[in-house]
């Protein structure tokens, strides 16, 4: 017993479950996030028909456009997988390359969302126009903030890897960001289906 429990756990070995603390922590956090989006999606589903004097969902959604940006976000999950695979092979160049691509695809999605919000605003759907507007901007806005945080994490990680400043296990850090990224992606699949594809 030269080493100790704390010491082991720090580097992801010999925990009681065999899972590293960081990974288990991330899974728990994502479990909690499910309830956050659950609450927001429920609120939207209750309010999506309450348009008041404002535009109806069908009038402001540009489904082809959002489909393309959704496709971009889905592809970013693929590049994230490639980044994790490269990190596990200790291939720093590949890791930073795919992390950068993932970050840029994510940024493209956020840019698309900004464009979409602007277009909707110009068509008369403000945040306070109707309950539908408030609930829509709140739900998709929360998701957009999550993607933005993810993009910042990805690009920061690129910088940190390039300067060799990653504390702990590099491959695991990339994987943790990957878990978060895939989660945000999956949530978008649900939001896209419920908000855009199912008619009111």
């Amino acid at each position, binding site marked *: *017993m030269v080493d*100790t429990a*704390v010491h082991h756990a720090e580097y992801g070995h010999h925990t009681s479950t065999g899972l590293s*603390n960081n990974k288990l*922590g991330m899974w728990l956090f994502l479990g909690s996030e499910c*309830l*956050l989006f659950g*609450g927001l999606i429920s609120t939207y589903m209750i309010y999506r028909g309450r348009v008041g004097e404002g535009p109806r969902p069908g009038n402001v959604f540009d489904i082809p456009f959002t489909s393309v940006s959704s496709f971009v976000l889905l592809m970013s999950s693929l590049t994230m997988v490639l980044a994790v695979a490269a990190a596990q092979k200790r291939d720093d160049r590949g890791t930073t390359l795919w992390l950068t691509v993932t970050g840029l695809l994510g940024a493209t999605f956020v840019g698309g969302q900004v464009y979409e919000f602007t277009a909707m605003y110009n068509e008369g759907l403000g*945040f306070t126009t109707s309950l539908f507007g408030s609930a829509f901007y709140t739900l998709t806005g929360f998701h957009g903030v999550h993607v933005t945080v993810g993009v910042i994490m990805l690009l920061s990680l690129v910088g940190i890897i390039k300067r060799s400043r990653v504390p702990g296990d590099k491959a695991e850090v990339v994987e943790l960001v990957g878990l978060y990224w895939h989660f945000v992606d999956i949530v978008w699949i649900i939001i896209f289906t419920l908000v855009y594809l199912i008619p009111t």
Partner: protein
Amino acid sequence: MAIIERPAPVGAPALPAPVTPTRTYGALRRPVATTGWKSWVFTVDHKKLGIMYGAVAMFFFIVGGIEAVLIRLQLAAPDNKVLTADVYNQMFTMHATTMVFLFVMPMAAAFANYFVPLQIGARDVAFPRINAFGFWTLVGGGIIVNLSWFLGGAADGGWFMYAPNSGPVFSPSNGVDFWALGLQITGIASLTGAVNLIVTVLNMRAPGMSLMKMPVFTWLQLVVQFLLLFAIPVITVALFLLSFQRSFGATFFDVSAGADPLLWQHLFWIFGHPEVYILVLPSFGIISEVLPVFSKKPLFGYPFVVFSGAAIGFVGWGVWAHHMFASGLGPVSVAVFSIATMAIAVPTGVKIINWTMTIWGGKLNFTAAMHFAIGLVVLFTIGGLSGVTHAVAPSDTQQTDTYYIVAHFHYVLFGGAIFGLFAGFYYWWPKVFGKQLNERLGKANFWLMVIGMNLTFGPMHMIGLQGQPRRMYIWTEARAGEGLFNLGFWNRVASIGSLILTVGVLLFLINVWKTARSKQVAPLDPWDARTLEWMTTSPPKEHNFDAIPTVRHLDEFFHRKYAQDSVTHEIKQVSTAEDIVRDQEANADKHIHMPSPSYWPIILASGLPVIALGVIYAIPVAIVGAVIVVLALFGWSLEPSTAPETDFDPPASEDGTKELAPLG
């Protein structure tokens, strides 16, 4: 400090502080103080954080208590003018908010922080810096919630803040904004704490400690942390929607703008009902430790206590709408939630039976802790029974928003949660501070609290069923009724009871003060305890255990002290706590790495209240807060939680007898 020296032999002078990390990470060097206020403010030690959680919670207990006494003084006489209607509204809102979010939850977190790692034989929690962050976040949230008293009036919509009371028409001050944002911040503290403690319990158990060998307190804390993990995000959504409504003009809860009047109620109670188990299960855990120790028997039916705790955790998600029976949910919903609510009484009843059977036939030792534990069993049962009457929907519609409800939840929260916490104070005080609280004062403390609480909350059953509405701020003699049901008489009784309660709590504070001044050191194992946290010095060393114990039994410490004679089947003492601790010291682990202190948790936490103030007053201030948060996150990420060995000063002594971090 980061690296631990070999423990000094008994009687020898303490060794100087360990060597210090020298490398700079990001913008700031690591804090290295081992004494003074810096060693507390920047600590990541779960024990120091536990004590700080306890101190802050105690402060808010006093604040919430003063608010309660003011409420009772206002109702002590007809047409009273102690508080105006407006201030009265703020008082009961803040009393409940303070007691729930700033006393019981942080105090349970104090016990969890301090004792969960010790009970599972770990040296710290899984994420020590997140632990420190959680504490400072709680402090920031508590300040924001209470700051409203000085900035135009506190929140006044009741602790569940139903619309339209939460809207600007009925609550024009900034109180509700402070309330929503402050609770948002304390929610972050609870959420990070939940992730941290779940990972700690699942991942950091000592070798041999399977889940079913864990102490019950740790088990029930695990259930509580899962409840927090899934309940907090729901209130987060509700509070965001409320803040967006009040600060940015949305109309989520404004019925006149077409909103659903029940949306807030559903979101609030989906959080709110698990919340009541979040409040009471830690206390159940505490008395499940206290009762066996002072009955000299193992806990009766350990697996039943564990699984009924988990069952409460599951069923607790399916009963929230019993808070809303009067809102016209429709017969199907009412029937489903009514039955689910009755069902949850079953696992709770299982626990009561288990505790009773634990005491049954035991060699009872009536210490102050035991008094409080038995007090919990009795008082919580009364509160539980009145709770079952709420499950019956037709009866509940008569009770809704009357003092009968107030009586019920004070029996379960005061008689349940708070009595359990007091049992914990008296039981674990010698462990945390190395000194025992005075038992005689403790028993006086108990009796005054029992008498006070029954006088205060007992009569509320009667006046509630007679129809006195909850939150009524004034009453007149002319309409008080006659005879036994004169609500004036019973309100006076309740107010006198609240003063007796106050004296009881004061006795506790006097006891703490006297104990702090006393020089008398507690024995190592004053209660002949059963679980791992007693298998180390009191107070425990920074690294908790010199050698991490290998666990073979439930109640491992008991099994190391006692063994059954194979012929006579008598239980005989084979070892003492002193022997066991001495043996551990002799076989101490070498080279213990402990997590290093950090500036980042408190810096990160300090950004959140700034954001809250910015949202209320001026958005640029919020941006400053956000910048603090982002910078702190970067500083945090670049700093390894445990300083590597290469970062430390060279050995302090030339001859090599005191090498880097030797232990053993």
